[in-house]
């Protein structure tokens, strides 16, 4: 059974000044996919996610969302962003709002739901990530792991079709990484479509169905975790994994 593509990236390039950061990137995210994007620092992983979310403007190529070029979205760019959730390395929770308000703002302003509905739904989502008891807290009162779980809830509250994670655990103390990965694993098991930039190789291997290795702005290799981790075809992949897995 062929899964339906949610996002198709076609010949995407991004240049900052004269610095080519992404070069002719092609890949797809289909329903139910959990894609891990790995690669050395500076290889363009964040830039790729940011282009998909239109936080950066691609220099060339196209990105199709459900078959529609996102360059041509016009005013629909706002509802598009709600459908493509984003979780940042540095959380980026709204510091002036409570946990609850963080999770209802988008529902109310972007999805035009009323406050009661939004709060009810936000509370359901917050319980799923174990943060419901903190709904009155402000972000600065939370630990990093708690913040990231709220950030995931904030994205989830908009019922996204896919969530992009940019190194969601890299800013966390080691003992807090587990709680966030657990939440992400749960989401994956419940069928959420996800693209995760990560350095957590165990997570990439166990949870994702596809792994993409990027280096120097290019997708060097792509495949199932089985293929990529046990039998990498590309020298750069092998070298990178060797450094990471201590082989």
């Amino acid at each position, binding site marked *: 059974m062929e899964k339906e593509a949610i996002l198709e990236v076609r010949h995407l390039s991004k240049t900052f000044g004269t610095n080519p950061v992404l070069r002719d990137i092609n890949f797809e995210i289909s329903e139910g996919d959990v894609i891990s994007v790995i690669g050395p620092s500076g290889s363009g992983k964040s830039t790729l996610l940011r282009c998909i979310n239109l936080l950066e403007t691609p220099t060339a190529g196209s990105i199709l969302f459900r078959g529609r070029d996102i360059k041509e979205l016009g005013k629909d760019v706002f509802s598009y962003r709600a459908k493509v959730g984003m979780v940042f390395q540095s959380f980026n929770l*709204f510091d002036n709002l409570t946990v609850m308000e963080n999770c209802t703002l988008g529902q109310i302003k972007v999805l035009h739901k009323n406050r009661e509905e939004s709060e009810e739904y936000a509370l359901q989502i917050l319980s799923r990530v174990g943060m419901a008891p903190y709904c009155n807290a402000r972000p600065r009162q939370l630990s990093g792991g708690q913040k990231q779980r709220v950030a995931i809830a904030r994205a989830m509250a908009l019922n996204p079709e896919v969530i992009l994670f940019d190194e969601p655990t890299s800013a966390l103390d080691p003992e807090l990484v587990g709680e966030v990965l657990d939440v992400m694993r749960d989401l994956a098991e419940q069928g959420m479509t996800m693209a995760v930039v990560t350095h957590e190789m165990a997570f990439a291997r166990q949870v994702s169905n596809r792994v993409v290795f990027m280096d120097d702005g290019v997708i060097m290799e792509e495949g199932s975790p089985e293929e990529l981790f046990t039998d990498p075809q590309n020298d750069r992949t092998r070298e990178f994994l060797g450094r990471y897995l201590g082989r």
Partner: protein
Amino acid sequence: MSKFSQLLQDVLRLCIKYYPMYFAGMKNTVLLALVGTVLGCMIGFVCGVLNTVPYDIRDPFRKRVLVRIMRTIIRAYVELFRGTPMVLQAVFIYYALPYFTDGAARFSSVWAASILVVSVNTGAYMTESVRGGIIAVDPGQVEGAMAIGLNHVQAMMYVILPQAIRSILPQIGNNFIINLKDTSVMFMISFTDFFAAHRGVVGATYLYFPSAVIEMVGYLTMTLISSFLLRKMEQRLEGSSSFELVVADHLTLTSGVYRNPASGELFIERNRDYAGKD
């Protein structure tokens, strides 16, 4: 010592005889400063937010041109009104109308002219304060707002300005206090503020120094009270530093229940009042 008792006598005499004039002047000064600052802030917020509208090559040509023109106009406005003395601006605006219309049109009231001058002048300073305040907010906050699909104005209203206000509020206070003092130049267009009262009184009594003492004390009283109130407001804005865990079965609360039996209103941040009461 006799000089001082003489001064005291003169001051008292002026106070008793002319207090309605001084008070009326004070009232006008406070009113003009207040209205001018409020309107100036509105101008400042609008211009400051417009000035930070982002654009990039993806946007249609028309929008890019529009944004550029808007920024240029706002820039010119700020430079013009920050770069010239308010007293000149007052004269300039007040006499421009009759000059160009050969006297056919003029400001019907000095109030209108004065409020216009003070708010436009304050607006120029506030535009820069608001822009600075917006830029000082962590860029991650803007990205978070964009990522959930808010547009520029929504991101400003609900996320950025509420955070920028911490650095903007002291500027509003500064501007208000500056306006309390600087509206004294409005006598140039015959506005009857507190300083105009002084000019009226000395015109009739020639008691220059005693009246100046009254003015000094009067202005200082107004500015000190304002400083005090502004500091209170800032403290108010700092808000609570603690929160309470909501301990209850959340799943029951998702089914249309909005009041937590144990801890009252679930969604109201109760700790807010707590900061106000201390």
